[in-house]
C-alpha cells in the first residue's frame, strides 16, 4: 500500500475537515454512558446477559435503523486481530478497556468515524461523538439525538435523584464526559500551563496528557474534560468547559505572539531544527517525534512554514503509534524496529508534500 493510501486510512475522515479554532483545538468529543435497566453491568454480568445487550445492537444493525445514522458498521471484538484492535484504540474509536473485554464487546462505527458506540465496555453503552476543532455544543446536540433514539427502544437504568446510573460512581448523573483536545506549545514552552492547571482543576475540570489518565502530555497536547457528572446539567458542564477552553485559547494565542515578537530567531531556529530532524532522522523515538511534530505544527500556525499541510501533527501523531506502525509493517515490531520505521514513514510523509 502506498503511504498516501495508508495515511488516508489512518486519519479519520472527520479529521480532515477544519473546525473552529483548529489552530489550537484539535478535536471536541462528547461521550455518554448508558445502561440497560435490567441487566447487570458488564463488570459482573455473565456472558448470557452481555449477549442480550449485544443482540439488541445486532438486530438494529441488521435493520440499519440507527437514528439518523444509516452508515454504522458493527465491529465485534472477538472477530478482530489484536493489531486491529490496537489500531482502533489509537484512533480513539474504542477504549483500551473495550478491546480487552473481547467476547461480547463490540463497537458501532460510522463511515466517517465521527460516531462510535461502544457496547459492553465498562457500561453497556457508550456513545461517542467527535468533531474537528472547537464544537462541543454541536457534538452534544448530536449525541443527544442518538441518545433519544436509543431511549425510545431501551429502558435505561435511570433514577430520579441520581440520574443515569453507571458502573463507576464517577460517571453517575449525566453520564457525560465532554472533552477537548488542545495543542498548547506556547503555554508549555513558557511554562505558563503549569500555573493554569491547578486553577482549572478547581473548577471541576481536569487536564490530562493526550493518552488519558496517568500519562504526561506528549507533543504538548492536552485534554481538558469535566470531572463532575452529578449536580450540573449537560449544558452547564459544556458551558463551563467552553469558558475555560476559550481562556486557554486566548492565553495560548498571546503566548505565541509574545514568543514570535521576543524570540523570533530562537523560535524559528527551534522550529526548523525540529523540521530538519523529522525530514532527515533515521531513528526516532515517539517522544522526540511528538516534540518535533509539535514544533513544526507551531511553525505552520505562526506562519514560518507554509509548504506542508495544516494537520501534520494530528496525522503523524496517529501514524507513529505502535499499533499503526505494526499495522503498516504487517508484523510485530520491537521498539527499536518501530523507531526506524517511524523515522522512515515521517521522512516519506514530508517528501509527499514537497
Amino acid at each position, binding site marked *: 500500500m502506498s503511504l498516501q493510501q495508508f495515511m488516508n486510512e489512518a486519519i479519520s475522515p472527520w479529521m480532515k475537515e477544519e473546525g473552529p479554532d483548529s489552530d489550537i483545538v484539535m478535536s471536541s468529543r462528547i461521550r455518554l454512558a448508558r445502561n440497560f435497566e435490567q441487566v*447487570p453491568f458488564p463488570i459482573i454480568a455473565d456472558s448470557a446477559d452481555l449477549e442480550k445487550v449485544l443482540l439488541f445492537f445486532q438486530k438494529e444493525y441488521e435493520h440499519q435503523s440507527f437514528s439518523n445514522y444509516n452508515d454504522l458498521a458493527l465491529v465485534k471484538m472477538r472477530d478482530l486481530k489484536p493489531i486491529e484492535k490496537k489500531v482502533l484504540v489509537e484512533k480513539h474509536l474504542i477504549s483500551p478497556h473495550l478491546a480487552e473485554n473481547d467476547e461480547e464487546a463490540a463497537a458501532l462505527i460510522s463511515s466517517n468515524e465521527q460516531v462510535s458506540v461502544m457496547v459492553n465496555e465498562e457500561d453497556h453503552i457508550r456513545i461517542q461523538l467527535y468533531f474537528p476543532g472547537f464544537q462541543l455544543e454541536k457534538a452534544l446536540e448530536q449525541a443527544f439525538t442518538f441518545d433519544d433514539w436509543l431511549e425510545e427502544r431501551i429502558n435505561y437504568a*435511570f433514577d430520579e*435523584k441520581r440520574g443515569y*446510573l453507571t458502573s463507576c460512581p464517577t460517571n453517575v448523573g449525566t453520564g457525560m464526559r465532554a472533552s477537548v483536545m488542545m495543542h498548547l506549545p506556547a503555554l508549555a514552552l513558557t511554562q505558563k500551563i503549569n500555573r493554569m492547571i491547578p486553577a482549572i482543576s478547581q473548577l471541576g475540570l481536569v487536564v490530562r496528557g493526550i493518552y488519558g489518565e496517568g500519562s504526561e502530555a506528549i507533543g504538548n497536547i492536552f485534554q481538558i474534560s469535566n470531572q463532575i457528572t452529578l449536580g450540573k446539567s449537560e449544558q452547564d458542564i459544556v458551558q463551563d468547559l467552553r469558558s475555560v477552553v476559550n481562556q486557554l485559547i486566548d492565553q495560548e494565542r498571546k503566548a505565541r505572539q509574545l514568543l514570535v515578537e521576543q524570540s523570533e530567531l530562537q523560535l524559528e531556529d527551534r522550529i526548523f531544527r525540529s523540521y530538519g530532524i523529522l525530514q532527515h532522522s533515521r531513528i526516532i523515538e515517539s517522544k522526540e517525534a511528538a516534540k518535533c511534530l509539535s514544533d513544526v505544527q507551531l511553525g505552520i500556525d505562526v506562519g514560518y512554514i507554509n509548504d506542508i499541510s495544516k494537520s501534520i501533527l494530528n496525522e503523524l501523531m496517529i501514524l507513529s503509534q505502535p499499533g499503526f506502525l505494526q499495522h503498516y509493517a504487517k508484523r510485530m515490531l520491537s521498539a527499536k524496529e518501530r523507531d526506524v520505521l517511524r523515522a522512515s514513514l515521517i521522512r516519506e510523509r514530508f517528501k509527499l508534500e514537497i
Partner: protein
Amino acid sequence: MECQECHERPATLHFSKIVNGNKTEIHVCEYCAKEKGYMGYEDEAYSLHNLLSGLFNFDAGSGFSEQHTSSVPSEKGLTCPKCGMTYQEFARIGKFGCAHCYQTFSDRLNPVFRRVHSGNTTHHGKIPSRIGSGIQQKRKLSEYREQLKQLIANEEFESAAEVRDKIKQLEKDLNRDGEGEEE
C-alpha cells in the same frame, strides 16, 4: 541493562514488585512488558480507582473497623439482591454491579458522591423522555413554584397569576398521569 526476558533488547522499563515485604526488581523492554503482562492498558486507570476505593473504604470503616464489620451478621443486609454485589466488594473495586446497587447502598452513597462530584448528590441534567416524563413534569413544577415565589417577592402579581395557573394545570396533569399508571 538488557531485558531479562528476551536478553536482546535493552530494558527500558523497571518495575518493583513487593510481595509480603520482599522486593523483587524487574527489568524488561517495552515489548516483553506487554507480552508478559507486566504492563497492560489497565495500569493507566489504576491510580484513579485506587483512590476511589480508598474513599469508599474510609466510609465503610467509620465507626467499625473493617474486621469488625465483616463479622457482624447484619452486614449481610448490604448485599445487592439483584446482582449479589456486597458493599465490601463495591468498596474494593469502586464499581457498582447493577442499577439496583444504587438503591441497596443508598445510605452510604451521599458522602461518596459529595467527594467525587464537588458536593453534589442530585442529578440536574437530562431526563429520558419516555421513562422519565413524570420526573420531567415534577421538575418543571418545582421550577414554577420557585418562579412564583420570586414573582410574589418582586410584587409582579400579574405574571405570578399566570405562573400559578400553569402550576395548577401541571398538578392536574400529574394527578391524571399518576392514576393512569396505576391502572
